């Protein structure tokens, strides 16, 4: 099992700073820079590109529209567009690029121990850029992300990406003509908590449009995972989360405002994912007609199925980012520490770290942990790097929240919260790995019949969670997804399921297999019963058999069916027995028959309420209470029938396994005829439990 999940091959990392430390940054910045571009394109002067962009139908159309809306002359807007382009053009000028490369080399060397990149990923990217327009989709944890990515592309002789930020059609044109890859953050903003944010769809749908309109043959989406051992803005984020307003951000601001240049921020891992072909993703999913009927330069509101597609792709891309996020030992430590506040014994921490490491790897987490590194060293080096968050005191690891010893109470709490939040930022990185398996665990927990077939457990879940859990199951190999003519079919791999279950049992022993106390939630609908129906108690002979046939509710039958051949035999037996019973009718059967009649009006009913009315509907003639069987209320008044709980409830609560779970025929509740007691206190009432007559319990 472990092997299966971790065998997913990932590329090796290379440290790109190593070489920078050995040779001149200046020479590096002045190196020959001839980025590869889209095949069949000849390199182009910025001015030529600029005029091509300005003359393009799309831009001209937008300019005209804007002019109309703003009541200004198109010339003015054209000028504005030119300015924007000039600015972009300036950014692309070689001099600026070189200066950038030089400074960034210096700064990165100062800040980070290592910057690790998967070389193979870079090669794939190099290849992809020459084939089709490329969209870079990095994760967003820090402001450093885009600097780092630009730096990286320069280093590998690739065209600097156009950073998509609010200039609309201009950049898309530049990108789709193949001059530069485009880059934006699916998450929209930096995640302050290190949890992956729900994706934004706007930009993604804009960059997909050229493909939908077939202006390009294909588009590559490249997920990029950038993981920081220590995030530059860690305390900034924590402050922000606590409500301290965030300072205005800019590149120089970020770097100047910090004494961070003297600080150590560990290692950055950049994993360039496999380019994903949009054409492959879209094959068979897109109705092309809408795009054929409108001129292509007109912006078009995406149809519903396009929107759905974009959203699916966005989530897929984020999952691919998550998959290759590198987790450091410190992340494990942070998670454990937060579970064991205020302090944790160092030895125990090491032991648990190792355990968590195993579990994480089982679920496909990508942990950077050199083979020969012992756990103690790993934990220690994490603690050293993050000495601002936690430290070792007398053999115990504690949060470093003692900033001002004698500060005001508010300040102490603030400090404490700060430390916890920072710590949580690292723990949260683990969340991405565990959230889906946890959903499955939860789902499995919420039903006791999961061994009979996994599908059922989703009934307890909302549809969104279902999707997630199902995705997780597919990922875990417990469920196989197969495309069929009408949608998808899911097949359960029993072996894998039981393995997963065993894993939960072994590793997370805190989770009991059966939870008797957590039933699924339902809403109870109250409806009056049709009086004429209850009056009509005559049993038509023809109906009898049909009524009896439904004695097992459909759900139960399904379940029985699911247990395979044994279940089938059981079912056939069921029918035979029923038939036999229908033929030789006893008094017992008559009562049950009446019960069935009553229930037939609303087969799903779980409670019958009729205070003081004609009394309960019995399921059998046996074990009916006599009048003196029902004790009087503590106030002395007689107790009268108020409501009865029907056996159907058992099905809804999924405690309907024969012979295993609790069972009743009906539960009848008698309450005080005087309704004694105040409105707000609990009073003891009387409940009578009647079981099914033994004659109706089928042999099993």
């Amino acid at each position, binding site marked *: 099992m472990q092997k299966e999940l971790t065998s997913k091959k990932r590329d090796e990392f290379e440290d790109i700073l190593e070489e920078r430390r050995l040779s001149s940054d200046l020479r590096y910045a002045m190196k020959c820079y001839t980025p590869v571009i889209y095949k069949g394109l000849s390199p182009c002067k910025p001015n030529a590109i600029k005029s091509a962009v300005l003359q393009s139908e799309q831009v001209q159309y937008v300019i005209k529209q804007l002019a109309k809306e703003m009541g200004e002359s198109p010339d003015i807007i054209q000028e504005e567009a030119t300015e924007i382009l000039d600015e972009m053009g300036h950014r692309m000028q070689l001099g600026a690029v070189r200066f950038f490369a030089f400074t960034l080399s210096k700064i990165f060397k100062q800040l980070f121990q290592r910057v690790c990149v998967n070389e193979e990923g870079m090669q794939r990217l190099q290849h992809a850029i020459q084939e089709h327009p490329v969209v870079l989709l990095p994760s967003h944890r820090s402001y450093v992300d885009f600097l780092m990515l630009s730096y990286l592309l320069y280093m590998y002789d690739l065209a600097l990406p156009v950073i998509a930020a609010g200039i609309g059609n201009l950049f898309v044109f530049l990108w789709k003509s193949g001059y530069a890859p485009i880059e934006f953050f699916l998450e929209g903003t930096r995640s302050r908590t290190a949890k992956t944010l729900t994706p934004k769809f706007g930009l993604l749908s804009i960059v997909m449009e050229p493909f939908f309109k*077939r*202006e390009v*043959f294909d588009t590559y989406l490249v997920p990029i995972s950038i993981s920081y051992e220590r995030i530059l803005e860690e305390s900034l984020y924590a402050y922000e989360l606590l409500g301290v307003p965030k300072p205005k951000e800019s590149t120089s601001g970020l770097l100047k405002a910090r004494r961070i240049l003297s600080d150590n921020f560990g290692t950055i891992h950049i994993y360039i994912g496999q380019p994903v072909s949009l054409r492959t993703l879209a094959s068979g999913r897109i109705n*092309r007609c809408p*795009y054929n009927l409108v*001129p*292509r330069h007109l912006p078009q509101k995406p149809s519903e199925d396009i929107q759905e597609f974009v959203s699916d792709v966005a989530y897929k891309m984020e999952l691919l980012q998550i998959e290759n996020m590198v987790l450091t030992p410190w992340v494990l430590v942070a998670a454990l520490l937060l579970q064991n506040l205020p302090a944790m014994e160092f030895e125990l921490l090491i032991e648990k770290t190792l355990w968590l490491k195993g579990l994480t790897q089982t679920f496909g987490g990508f942990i950077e942990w050199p083979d020969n590194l012992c756990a103690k060293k790993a934990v220690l080096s994490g603690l050293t790097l993050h000495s601002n968050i936690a430290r070792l005191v007398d053999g115990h690891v504690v949060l470093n929240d003692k900033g001002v010893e004698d500060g005001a109470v508010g300040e102490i709490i603030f400090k404490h919260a700060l430390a916890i939040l920072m710590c949580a930022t690292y723990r949260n990185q683990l969340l991405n790995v565990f959230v889906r398996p946890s959903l499955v665990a939860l789902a499995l927990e919420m039903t006791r019949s999961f061994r009979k077939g996994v599908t059922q457990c989703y009934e307890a879940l909302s549809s969104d969670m279902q999707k997630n859990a199902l995705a997780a199951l597919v990922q875990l190999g417990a469920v196989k997804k197969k495309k069929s003519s009408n949608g998808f079919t899911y097949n359960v791999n029993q072996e894998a399921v039981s393995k997963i279950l065993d894993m939960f049992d072994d590793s997370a022993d805190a989770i009991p297999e059966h939870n008797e106390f957590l039933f699924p939630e339902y809403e109870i609908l109250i409806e009056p019963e049709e009086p004429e129906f209850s009056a009509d108690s005559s049993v038509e002979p023809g109906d009898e058999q049909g009524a009896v046939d439904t004695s097992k509710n459909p759900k139960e039958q399904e379940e029985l069916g699911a247990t395979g051949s044994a279940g089938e035999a059981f079912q056939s037996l069921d029918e035979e027995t029923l038939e036999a019973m229908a033929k030789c009718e006893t008094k017992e059967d008559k009562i049950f028959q009446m019960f069935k009649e009553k229930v037939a009006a609303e087969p799903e009913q779980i409670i019958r309420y009729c205070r003081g009315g004609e009394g309960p509907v019995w399921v059998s003639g046996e074990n009916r209470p006599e009048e003196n069987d029902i004790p009087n209320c503590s106030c002395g008044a007689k107790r009268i029938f108020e409501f009865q709980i029907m056996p159907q409830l058992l099905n809804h609560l999924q405690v309907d396994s024969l012979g295993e779970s609790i069972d009743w025929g009906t539960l009848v509740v008698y309450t005080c005829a005087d309704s004694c007691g105040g409105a707000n206190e609990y009073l003891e009432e009387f409940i009578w439990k009647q079981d099914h007559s033994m004659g109706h319990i089928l042999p099993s």
Partner: protein
Amino acid sequence: MRGRGRAGAGPGPGPGPGPGPGRSRSRGKRWSGSRCRDCRNQKEGGLEPLACVCKRVIRHWNGLPREGVDSPSLEVFKLRLDVALSAMIWQELLKWNGWGYNDSKFIFNKKGQAEFTGKRYRLGGMVLPTFKEWIEKTFGASLEHKTTSRASLNVNDVPPSIVNEEFLQDLRATKISYSQDAEDRVFRAHGHCLHEIFVLREGMFKRIPDIVVWPVCHEDVVKIVELACKHNLCIIPFGGGTSVSSALECPEEEKRTIVSLDTSQMNRILWIDEKNLTACVEAGIVGQDLEKQLAESGFCTGHEPDSMEFSSLGGWVATRASGMKKNIYGNIEDLVIHIKMVTPRGIVEKNCQVPRMSTGPDIHHFIMGSEGHALKPQVASIFTSFLDGLKKFYITKFKGFDPNILCVATLLFEGDREKVLQHEKQVYDIATKFGGLAAGEDNGQRGYMLTFVIAYLRDLGLDYYVIGESFETSVPWDRVLDLCRNVKERIVRECKEKGVQFAPLSTCRVTQTYDAGACVYFYFAFNYRGISDPIHVYEQIERAAREEILANGGSLSHHHGVGKLRKRWMKESISDVGLGMLRSVKEYVDPNNIFGNKNLL
């Protein structure tokens, strides 16, 4: 309708042994016996190969004894003999398992150089020095690896002809020529799709027509349709047999007797009205004959599809054909002003011959593009134009004279002197602006002729494990470049995926232009060595290419038609309601599905 390549006014039979203008003919079976072929080859000069005719007549006579024996009078006998004879002479001229004339084909001569045989085309006898290298380089084909087609049709493989005796009796009573001969039937069981030619070379069709009939006039057709209704038969009209949409394929599941209605004997121009510039022509006339006969009176139609040597007027109407000169003369729907058509429901026609009328939706548009569906056009009046002024050919070459990346355009100017000169100047101005230049009329003539013999290339490829086909679409101007690029790329990719070992030839050109868009022609061929089921692979790739075309905003077809080959996309192309409209017309006109070729709908 054939639209192979884009040549136009075929040079025609020229000095070859083709039947002269006005002679009736049908096309069809190729005679197997090698003596006949030898005999004909000796007579390239122009005389009819008499000896062979005699033999063939005897054979035919024996094959269809009743035709002669039952003739009530000498006149009828003569008429039938004429039909039979002319049919055979034309049949003999055509390949039975490939494109065009028997004597015209590409071969590799003893020196290993490619050569075009025969004297019909200006290319005849010429050597193409770089062609071998090109074919080897492009397809990875080698002259050592050759496939061979069966030499002739094996009559034993042919499905038997099942015809109701009562129908035969009724048919005989009408005195319409017919044949149940295997070769005649096989010849009319296919068009020129790749898979059809492949079947001819290596296998046999599962279902072919049971009987071929040759009506000679409108009344004959009426009688045949009446008989078909009476006996519940299935009729599939046959014109030139140049369909590239599987339209002539007999539906395998058709249980009724299939009658192939060959229009080739209805090939007369009934009258020419010089005042109104119209002519009344029977549906079976072949393009080159029509042009030739009109030319005798100083007229032309200007409708020149590439297949015009072989395709018929009726076929043009049934597919909504388009020709290369359409910018001056218009497409078939612009040329035809009146159609008289026989349907199982009765005869449909307009009451007058006027250029345009506002009488609700034009009923002609149910007929044009109906793909032989319940509809049999009989007599069409066609706009004609004066044929005079200047014809000039030019090649415009764009500068940068590497012959491999040279862009060449063949332009044909037609009209009166001033107009031609004016057009010429306009084009040159444009060419100069982009650095091009005129290459002279001689080159133009050659380019014109080359585009025309392109259709013969596939047969050569088939001999060397190369299969290929062309297909077309129409697309708005702004999407032309994207569509071409994407479709070519898709073809290359699909080939790779399907295990084609050598990169395919995937190329295209714009062949017709409109104000709102253009017609684009794709050529696609690949070397299929190492692939067990090349036709299946080919079809999958072609389907993918068509999907790509549709996704790029191209049409299902510009002029080839839908047939059975492209039926699956009809709903997407014209919407559910549109399809329903057509179905209800079919339902009204032909409730018993007498014209049951299952095309289009």
